[in-house]
């Protein structure tokens, strides 16, 4: 799985380079609407690892983004997302299958976006990559896994791709698929085991609406 992730990263970088090649020619077509807000929701998978999560968890992300385009092809975006936990049957190893849900999780990311609008169509695909943080909020209820006495904030990175489909001069449908990796502390209980803390990899697929001012 790790090999495939690295491949996707390479493809994303190549697509970004491709977007850069056309940027100077495309800048002339800039329509001047540079700021976009969007609201997104979907599903987010937290992959199991050896030090925090004994099984996969699937939660529901709800987020909002604010982006600013420097040119037709390049922009930056900030996002805030709340990962709403869903109780599900998970395999806890020797404890067998139990109904558990993760603590509430907040994500804040800043990303660079490379857009490549399709000429003559309403489609505007993009690739994105960035960094930020993820906060696992404290919760020690018996149905939570892991149980956290204190909130923990971890450095995180993201990369992925998506597309807008224009519905008019301002509104667009937006689909986004993002890979996120959080790197929790090795010393705090809950997300680490034996002074080791593996990265928590997450895949997130979202759909939503975007409004361009």
């Amino acid at each position, binding site marked *: 799985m790790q*090999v495939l992730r690295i491949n996707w990263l390479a493809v994303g970088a190549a697509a970004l380079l491709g977007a850069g090649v056309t940027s100077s020619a495309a800048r002339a077509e800039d329509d001047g609407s540079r700021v976009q807000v969007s609201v997104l929701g979907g599903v987010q998978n937290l992959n199991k690892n050896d030090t925090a999560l004994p099984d996969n*968890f699937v939660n529901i992300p709800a987020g909002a983004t604010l982006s600013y385009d420097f040119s037709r092809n390049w922009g930056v975006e900030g996002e805030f997302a709340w990962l709403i936990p869903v109780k599900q049957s998970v395999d806890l190893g020797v404890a067998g299958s139990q109904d558990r849900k993760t603590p509430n999780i907040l994500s804040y990311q800043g990303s660079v976006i490379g857009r*490549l609008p399709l000429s003559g169509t309403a489609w505007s695909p993009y690739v994105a990559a960035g960094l930020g943080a993820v906060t696992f909020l404290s919760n020690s209820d018996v149905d939570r896994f892991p149980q956290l006495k204190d909130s923990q904030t971890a450095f995180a990175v993201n990369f992925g791709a998506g597309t807008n489909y224009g519905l008019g001069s301002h509104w667009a449908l937006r689909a986004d*698929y993002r*890979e996120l990796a959080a790197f929790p502390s090795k010393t705090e209980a809950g997300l680490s085991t034996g002074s080791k803390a593996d990265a928590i990899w997450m895949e997130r697929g979202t759909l939503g609406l975007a409004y361009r001012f």
Partner: protein
Amino acid sequence: MNNTQAVGSGVGQTGSNGLPQTRERRLVGQKETIDMNSAVIERTAGRIEARELSSAGVLARTIVLIGRVFYSAIFFMAASNFSRQAVASIGGQR
């Protein structure tokens, strides 16, 4: 020692022995994990344990599969448009 090795690919495919194809083999210290499409086999110091994926695990793999299809569609769209623009650009220079 961490060692991850992809030894197969394809969701839902079966090998020549009729068993689900192996997706990945991981070796972390003494623990070897063989990740199948619908089950996981773990071997720790000679002790072998096999278990089916939980419903969360199956759902997670479905999300990953959908993501790969989505990525493929995005990159196909972008690449076809880029090549179209490149051809048009070359044509315009003549």
